[in-house]
């Protein structure tokens, strides 16, 4: 299986990076600093 002729195992590196950015945005939305 491939996306844009790139095997899915290689393309997953790009998917992981996108997931990390989305995760960081969600974390930022949920993060509540305790002492401020």
């Amino acid at each position, binding site marked *: 299986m491939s996306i844009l*002729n790139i*095997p899915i*195992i290689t393309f997953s590196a790009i998917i992981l*990076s996108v997931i990390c*950015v989305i995760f960081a945005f969600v974390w930022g*939305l949920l993060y509540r*600093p305790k*002492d401020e």
Partner: protein
Amino acid sequence: MNNMLIYAVVIILYLLLLLVIGVISGRKTKDTSDFYLGGRNIGPWVTSLSYVAAYFSSVVIIGGGAFGWLYGMSTLWIGAINVLLGTTVCWIILGPRMREITHRLNVITIPEFLKRRYDSNFALIFSSLVIAIFLIVYNVSMLKGMGHIFEGLIGVSYIYGLLISSVIILFYVSIGGYIAVVWTSFIQAWIMGIGLITLTIFTLKSVGGISNAAFNLSVINKGYVDTPGVWNWQGLISYALIVSFGVWGMPQLLVRFYSIKKLSFFKIGTPVAALGTCLALLPYFNGAISRILFPSLKNPDLAIPMLVKSVLNPVGSSIFLAAVLAAGMSTFSSVLIIITGSIIKDFLKEGLKLNYDDKRMLTMSKITTLIVGIISIIIAIKPPALVLALTAFSWAIISSTTLWPVLFGLYARWVTKAGVISSMIGGFLVALIWMVLKQPFKVHGFIPGIVISFMLITLISLFTKKYGKEFLEAIYHKK
């Protein structure tokens, strides 16, 4: 001649911008807290993007392209692990906690944090010496990279390239301190982004898009698009770990967490830093695709410079040159100020108890920045073999010494002084000896360094005297 004029105009404008930032920052730098941490008053965008710029040096751009050319698209995983471990997880686990504790303890450097957290003068002196010595070695490689970039891309001699870039950096760091470092790094991150994205767009245009590029690459060798493909798992994983997890012990990056103005700024800073780190995938990607255009190269380091010359016009090439220089300069300046802090603030003031007033310390810091910079330039003019050999290991040695003491220092109350000291010495020695033995089993010194350092800090802490409750409350207890 016209091309040279375009290069000259773009580079001169860029360097002038850095000088102006240096002068403005100099006016805002009134004391040592400003010089080393910008008065802990830095915003989320500047903190996060200056982190990205300090993370990626010109060596990463040129070397990443070389890795991409050699091993193909599997190297995209190095960039992805950078985004995951080097930024996202690092910012979430270390960032807020480090900002909170260092602010409470009123410490401004990593060795100072280790001293206060573990009540150990040895931790301070040992870590400050390791950081100062091995970051100078690391800086020599930055300078060398910048000299070669001038030489390779616009034909200016190595020495002139080295001098032009380093003199500008020395000016703005010694005048403006940390404020100049973060603001120039912020601008440099944008230039790096524009340069790398421009190169990627034009590279894809020249090879007919991503699908075509991947197809043509797989025709040359299917291993160039597969993972691990023509590489191997242990090589790929260990390299990705070194340049991602290793960051967790690198003071020039961790200091960004000290200086951010408010804890709430991590809400914006973390996603911006993660997004910015995605740029790390581009040198590998472009390097991999460059194999279609240049199936054989004598030196893989030429992959990116040749790609630039081949797909970009002179304006694009000059922007990319500025981007690569920006990458080198931002890392060099970030490292330079950490070395100064280790020598003046940690070793002389805290370690040897030199009690000078703040104004005198500030002057000494500025002069030391210049001296360290000049020493780095002199070594970089003709680096001895030992320095070159140490360069590849400087990250590993510093990280093996400081990574676990910093991480455990933020979270683990049960870690003992004996555990920390043995971990620092053990991690340092193992990484160094591994280098002297020329990497047995082809494993990079970082891996045994952090494994031994982890074992020592956990095992020895189990059997040695713990810190008192009152001492720990002062470190961890919130007001």
